[in-house]
């Protein structure tokens, strides 16, 4: 493919990126910000996957198998902690207007300038090589795609296309990364573009993966099967010796802090976060993203080895060379764009984040502490700060480009990336200690950082300087000045580690040791302690930040106003001031500022120039009085007490709400009970009206018609008697049910021979069955069971069930079976008939009072509609139960269960024995 085509495609891609960024910024100005969606947040986190992932993973997998996974497993393992750690960091940064990792650490340890400077320098040194390998990746992929040789950069940089690419990337970053001064205002366009790039690189990588796995091979099984036949590849299926297992472990440890503390990760995860709740989605979406992008790494590595197995082909670029080898130019171009997006997203975010650190933590503290320099800049501060950042971006990219041309060919993608990880990992003790340990002090943080960074430099950077020929080679073999214990790769004689693990071990050791020692033995300054409490207990103080910062002194309101105007311009400064005054109902005419206003101003300034510079600026206009530690504690206590009172009030009001809800619920229950009573009453009256209607009508007819024939008269009189009986039965049952339900009718519990109870019940309905020529059969498998029951009530239950069975069976054909069994803890009586049965829909309903079938095709059942309700109630009072098994036209079986008591169970076991 010609260089021109590739260049045009790269430019086209970049212009799409420009377009997206412009569009997103315009949209957000119109109020339709895309970043309110958690998906954009999760995708922007994927800036973690750089060219190192896109190209390097495959290269690494080709030489080391699944080892490449360590840097994805590490971050995944940290994900469960995000809800506590990351959320806390985000909250702290929002409250204190912190805009970079350097600012975060320096703010925590007494807004110390030195710490900010140290962190910034460490980041720049650690990360410029990392940026340079992105440039290298772009250049190499360009070379592979255009068919040029891989000899490295052309000697003259003006003819090197990667130089121009670097400039374009710098332009993009400057345009979207340094738009406004206040860095807490988010980079809408930038983040949207990054999220877009994350999608592109994923699609491109997966596309090549699918092409190789399913196009060139017959799926993963095929690739792994063939790779398994080559001993050279088979060894990658497993871990080798102990050596690589430790390496694996250290790499995982190393990548854990990287996911949060690399400047670009801190930028997207913390500074650009618009809503803490986005973490919920990101916590599963981001690991999923890494999982998907890692899925095809091994197939690509093995596929590349199997197809292009010669030393010329660099495994790092299999993603490109495999499609090219088979003439798939379109796919190769897509892969190139994917790699380009991976590299460019990293470069853009990383340089933006670093530029803020350089301006706020390196340059500004210097400038603002010199009144003479301050004067020179005058009112042009905000443009000045932005210009510093622009210069920083350009400078860093040029440095990275230079590093790529001069140094980077000595090292692989992976080793350089790991060096950066190791540098950033040095922040871990200071950050984690800083947000969970109030005693963590400035002295401790400084000591830990200095020691950790020095060891990191000595064990990882010094060897590269030796390789580059800048230091004598005998340093590596014999140690500097012949001191063997100082050899950079085997410090203090520690052998058997690879360089990265070795460095991480020693640097963590001295870093954590120094941090803890310094914190324990060097006291905190008042400001240090104040910040420590505000960091560790951020969730308690977040809403009362301004009054929780201890400050004593005199400042003129007009001076504060002037400071804000210098950095934000007249309009925004006035607006911010007025908003604050209104919120706290302060008098704008006040001459002296109270401490809350001072803190508020300092916080605003911190968002623009960093916490340390903001501190210096405030000091420059204030007559500050030294504040003692106990005063800090007092202020915190007052603030905390207010908070507690607030909390108490809230708790009380929640309790009240709960109580109200409970009352409401009780009221509802009462209403429901009332309604039930009403319903019952109206059903009962309705049921009573029916027989009375017949009785009254028939009696009146008899009364008014003397001339009726004798037979009709007898028939009518008979009907009146039957309806009266029906009425009596109904009334008795209503009273019965009422007595049982209200508990007024106590059960008369006494031992009863169940066989006899059943026999008596059967005898009392036998005549009825015989009249209808039905069969009535009893099977008793446990004839000698005695239960403690209310004998008459149980009789009533059985008679009710038996008469129901007779009622619903056809004459002549009816067959009713009563069966008694012992089942575990239960005495079970089943009454089965072969009548018309009951639709399962009604099985639960028939035990309700006055249940009338909703099925309008069946006639009303005869009887009061209370029999089964009473039956169930009686059994419930015996701690028993009743249920029905039935199908339409297949008869019904009512099953009664009565519990056996301890004594009865014992008796039944003895009988069995």
């Amino acid at each position, binding site marked *: 493919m010609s260089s021109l085509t590739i260049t045009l495609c790269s430019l086209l891609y970049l212009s799409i990126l420009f377009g997206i960024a412009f569009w997103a910024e315009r949209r957000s100005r119109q109020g339709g910000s895309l970043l309110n969606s958690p998906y954009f947040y999760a995708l922007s986190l994927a800036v973690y996957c750089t060219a190192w992932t896109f190209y390097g993973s495959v290269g690494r997998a080709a030489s080391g198998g699944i080892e490449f996974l360590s840097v994805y497993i590490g971050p995944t393992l940290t994900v469960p902690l995000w809800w506590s750690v990351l959320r806390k960091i985000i909250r702290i940064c929002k409250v204190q207007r912190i805009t970079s990792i350097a600012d975060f650490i320096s703010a925590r340890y007494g807004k110390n300038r030195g710490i900010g400077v140290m962190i910034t320098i460490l980041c720049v040194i650690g990360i410029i090589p990392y940026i340079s390998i992105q440039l290298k990746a772009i250049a190499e992929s360009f070379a592979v795609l255009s068919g040029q040789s891989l000899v490295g950069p052309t000697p003259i940089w003006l003819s090197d296309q990667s130089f121009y690419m670097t400039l374009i990337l710098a332009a993009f970053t400057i345009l979207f990364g340094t738009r406004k001064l206040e860095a807490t205002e988010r980079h809408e366009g930038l983040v949207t573009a990054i999220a877009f790039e994350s999608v592109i690189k994923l699609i491109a990588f997966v596309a090549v993966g699918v092409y190789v796995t399913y196009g060139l091979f017959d799926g993963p099984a095929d690739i792994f099967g063939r790779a398994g036949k080559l001993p050279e590849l088979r060894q990658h299926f497993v871990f080798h010796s102990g050596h690589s297992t430790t390496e694996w472990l250290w790499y995982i440890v190393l990548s854990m802090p990287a996911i949060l503390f690399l400047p670009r990760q801190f930028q997207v995860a913390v500074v650009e976060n618009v809503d803490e709740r986005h973490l919920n989605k990101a916590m599963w979406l981001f690991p999923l993203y890494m999982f998907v992008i890692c899925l095809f790494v091994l197939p690509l590595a093995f596929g590349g080895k199997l197809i292009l197995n010669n030393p010329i082909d660099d495994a790092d670029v299999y993603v490109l060379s495999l499609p090219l080898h088979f003439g798939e130019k379109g796919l190769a171009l897509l892969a190139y764009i994917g790699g380009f997006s991976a590299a460019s997203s990293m470069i853009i975010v990383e340089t933006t984040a670093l530029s803020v650190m350089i301006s706020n933590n390196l340059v500004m503290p210097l400038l603002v502490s010199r009144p003479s320099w301050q004067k020179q800049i005058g009112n042009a501060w905000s443009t000045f700060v932005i210009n510093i950042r622009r210069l920083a971006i350009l400078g860093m990219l040029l440095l990275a480009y230079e590093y790529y041309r001069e140094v980077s060919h000595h090292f692989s993608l992976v080793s350089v990336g790991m060096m950066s990880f190791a540098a950033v990992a040095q922040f871990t003790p200071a950050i984690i200690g800083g947000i969970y340990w109030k005693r963590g002090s400035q002295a401790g943080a400084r000591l830990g950082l200095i020691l950790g960074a020095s060891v990191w430099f000595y064990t990882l950077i010094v060897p590269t300087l030796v390789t580059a020929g800048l230091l004598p080679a005998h340093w590596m073999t014999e140690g500097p000045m012949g001191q063997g214990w100082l050899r950079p790769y085997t410090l203090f004689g520690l052998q058997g580690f690879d360089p990265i693990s070795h460095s991480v071990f020693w640097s963590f050791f001295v870093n954590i040791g120094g941090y803890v020692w310094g914190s324990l033995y060097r006291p905190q300054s008042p400001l240090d302690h104040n910040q420590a409490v505000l960091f560790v207990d951020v969730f308690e103080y977040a809403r009362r930040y301004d009054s929780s910062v201890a400050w004593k002194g005199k400042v003129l309101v007009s001076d504060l106003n002037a400071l804000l105007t210098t950095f934000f311009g007249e309009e925004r400064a006035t607006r911010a001031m007025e908003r604050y005054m209104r919120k706290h109902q302060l008098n704008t005419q006040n001459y002296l500022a109270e401490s809350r206003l001072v803190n508020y101003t300092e916080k605003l300034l911190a968002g623009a120039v960093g916490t340390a510079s903001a501190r210096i600026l405030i000091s420059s206009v204030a007559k500050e009085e030294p504040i003692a530690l106990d005063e800090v504690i007092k202020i915190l206590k007052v603030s905390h007490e207010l908070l507690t009172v607030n909390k108490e009030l809230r708790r009380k009001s929640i309790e009240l709400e709960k109580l109200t809800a409970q009352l409401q619920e009780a009221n509802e229950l009462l209403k429901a009970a009332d309604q039930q009573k009403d319903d019952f009453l*109206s059903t009962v009256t309705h049921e009573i009206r029916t027989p*009375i209607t*017949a*009785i*009254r009508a*028939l009696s009146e007819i008899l009364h008014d018609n003397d001339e009726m024939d004798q037979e009709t008269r007898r028939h*009518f009189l008979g009907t009146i008697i039957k309806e009266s009986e029906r009425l009596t039965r109904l009334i008795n049952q209503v009273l019965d049910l009422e007595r049982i339900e209200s508990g007024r009718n106590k059960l008369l519990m006494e031992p009863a021979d169940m066989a006899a109870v059943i026999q008596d019940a059967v005898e009392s309905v036998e005549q009825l069955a015989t009249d209808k020529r039905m069969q009535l059969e009893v099977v008793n498998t446990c004839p000698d069971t005695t239960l403690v029951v209310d004998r008459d009530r149980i009789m009533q239950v059985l008679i009710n069930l038996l008469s129901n069975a007779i009622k619903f069976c056809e004459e002549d054909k009816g067959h009713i079976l009563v069966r008694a069994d012992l089942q575990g803890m239960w005495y079970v009586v089943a009454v089965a008939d072969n009548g018309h049965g009951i639709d399962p829909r009604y099985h639960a309903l028939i035990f309700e009072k006055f249940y009338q079938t909703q099925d*309008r095709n069946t006639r009303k059942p005869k009887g009061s509609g209370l029999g089964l309700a009473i039956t169930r109630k009686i059994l419930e009072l015996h701690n028993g139960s009743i249920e029905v098994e039935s199908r339409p036209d297949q008869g019904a079986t009512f099953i009664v269960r009565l519990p056996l008591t301890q004594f009865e169970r014992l008796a039944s076991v003895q009988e069995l024995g």
Partner: protein
Amino acid sequence: MLKVLIADDEPNILMSLEFLMKKEGYRVYIARDGGEAFDLIQQEKPDLLLLDIMMPRMDGYELCQFVKQHPDYRHAKVIFLSAKSKDLDVQKGYDVGGDLYIPKPFSTRDLIAKINQLKAAA
């Protein structure tokens, strides 16, 4: 000879009403549920309907509504005889076009008197 249709799912009430109406000189048709009543209305076009409300298959309200909306049967007088005696139920009876709503239990003399009044008014 005027035709009366009596619909009720209580056989003993049916029996008494049948006796009464025969004595009044009506030709009497008996329905033991709403469905039977519905068929008989169309077959016999009765002049008077004595309807219970709660019946299987079709209730009294539905029957009345059908009768009053159909040009062939509209002339018939409808009297509800129901154990439902709430104001709402009575109101609904008149809303669907019933001519009279008599709660159960009723007086037979009163019922006959009211039927005769209806006949005279028509």
